[in-house]
């Protein structure tokens, strides 16, 4: 058993582009739920629109990437409005259900054959990020040690992505500390009370939904850049659940929570998968078990994640770093 390999893999995932993408998605969710109390279970829909919007401008319409990114984020704004206007007046559980349904249905629409001419349907779109990688000033080659290493382009994506993570965290922090943020947090506590004080709560919720959604869209843009393409299978509803898992791991309604959570999430997930791969490769296990594990590490790590979420809520409902006291007020 080579723990260098396992640890290297885990660390690579924990700091890599995927972790930054999830950190962005979770920062958006944190604004939605942690601060505004909006149960958005369709964050992946925003990621998908950010990614596809960018890719469609570049690959389908032959436009510039620098037009594609704002277009993708614009789609996120439109989605937030279309989703929010009919549902934000309703009870929060209706909103939760509608968001998850809307995101998945949007995905089905994107991958359907009538949409193939624009979205590439089941094939997705490719080769969209050339002008992004043209800006890469890093030398070629690999950076790092052992399995903990990145290619030049990966490192370039990471630098940009983590800078965005810092900027978005700062943006959310500044917003939350403003009187605007105070109203938003008040709505989280009790919307009727805030309405009775003369605030147009639906407008605030809509604004929070748009901003968190655009941050989620940014996550999608980075995803499209790092793969230099988009495919609808990357935007299944699970992605939202994983982003939620990361947010809960790190802690709700804190500035660093989503970031720490995303790093931890990918570190653990890749660590477990790598560990299982090592186990079956080392031949220490009975054959039947090794056969069973072989190639199944993805599913097993998700099974463990499920157990982890249930156990976490049962044993530490406030999250790993959360304070017990603040949980029992409200919710």
């Amino acid at each position, binding site marked *: 058993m080579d723990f260098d390999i396992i640890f290297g893999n885990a660390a690579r995932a924990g700091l890599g582009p995927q972790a930054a993408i999830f950190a962005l998605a979770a920062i958006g969710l944190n604004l939605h739920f942690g601060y505004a109390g909006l149960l958005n279970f369709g964050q992946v829909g925003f990621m998908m629109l950010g990614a596809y919007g960018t890719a469609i401008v570049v690959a389908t319409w032959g436009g510039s990437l620098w037009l594609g990114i704002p277009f993708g984020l614009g789609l996120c704004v439109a989605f937030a409005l279309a989703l929010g206007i009919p549902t934000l007046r309703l009870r929060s559980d209706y909103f939760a259900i509608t968001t998850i349904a809307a995101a998945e249905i949007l995905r089905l629409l994107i991958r359907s054959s009538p949409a193939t001419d624009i979205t590439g349907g089941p094939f997705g779109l490719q080769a969209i990020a050339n002008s992004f990688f043209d800006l890469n000033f890093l030398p070629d080659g690999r950076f790092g040690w052992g399995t903990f290493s990145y290619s030049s382009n990966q490192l370039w994506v990471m630098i940009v992505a983590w800078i965005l993570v810092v900027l978005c965290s700062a943006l959310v922090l500044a917003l939350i500390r403003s009187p605007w943020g105070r109203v938003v947090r008040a709505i989280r506590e009790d919307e009727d009370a805030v309405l*009775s004080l003369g605030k147009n709560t639906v407008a605030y919720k809509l604004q929070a939904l748009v901003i968190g959604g655009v941050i989620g869209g940014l996550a999608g843009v980075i995803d499209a850049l790092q793969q230099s393409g988009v495919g609808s299978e990357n935007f299944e509803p699970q992605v939202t659940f994983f982003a939620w898992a990361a947010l809960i791991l790190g802690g709700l309604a804190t500035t660093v929570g989503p970031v720490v959570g995303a790093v931890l999430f990918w570190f653990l997930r890749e660590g477990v998968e790598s560990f299982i791969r090592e186990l079956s490769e080392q031949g220490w296990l009975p054959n039947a078990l090794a056969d069973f594990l072989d190639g199944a590490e993805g599913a097993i790590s998700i099974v463990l994640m499920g157990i982890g979420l249930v156990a976490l809520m049962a044993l530490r409902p406030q999250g790993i770093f959360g304070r017990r006291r603040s949980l029992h007020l409200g919710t």
Partner: protein
Amino acid sequence: MSGATTIRPELTQAALEAAPPGRLKDDPILITFGMLKTFGGIRAVDIDHLEIERGTITAIIGPNGAGKTTLFNLLTGFDRPDRGSWRLDGRLLGGLPPHRIARLGMVRTFQLTKSLSRLTVLENMAVAAQTQRGERLERALLRWLWQPEEARVRERAQALLERFGLAHMAGDQAGTLSGGQRKLLEMARALMADPTLVMLDEPTAGVNPALTESLLEHIRDLNAEGVTIVFVEHNMDVVMDISDWVVVMAQGRILTEGPPQEVVANEEVIDAYLGRPRDTADGEEEGDA
């Protein structure tokens, strides 16, 4: 404007004779016509006419399920009536959303206290201040645009907390307050919104006698400053003590209205609300105090 009872004595005299609901007031701040709200068959509110006199303290009494809370919900825009219209200071309010009604000066509290638990007491207050520049998203990041105003808001909030005896808890999360303190906070918060008409739904429910006393004191002070007050109350001592006018509701309708002494003497009221043997009820209240 003085806070003393401004209901015309001759009106009261007339009331003593007929005591019909829906009596006209001298200077009504709120007028309601033909208000009906049904919940699947139940007529939760069915009021032909109701006026609230400006600058007075009006108590609404009635048994549970009488429709008091529903009436508050309708007047403040939290629920839509099946039909009916109402005016605040002459302005029709039908169809306006609750926040617009609040901005026009009619601010309510809730029967089940709604404190903003994970905000501090001071933040609870600050959120109620009207038309803050920093509450607009486009200015939220431009700190220098709202910083001075924010300082003024906090100062005012602190002063109000001082007055309500909550200043020492300004930095605590509101969820850590006791039930009575939360009622106080909710009232202070309503004031922070600069209302002309305050609607308090059972402000003294579940509050201990000492705090109740100070709550009533605040209601009187407020009224003395010219704010019109409508409140729902079950404790007849309280009603007799501070209200200028009493509206009695039962089964969605207004049974009668009039000055407190008149209303407690009304047979119908005793039947519907106070319970037949009036002495027992009084005895209990005394035992409490």
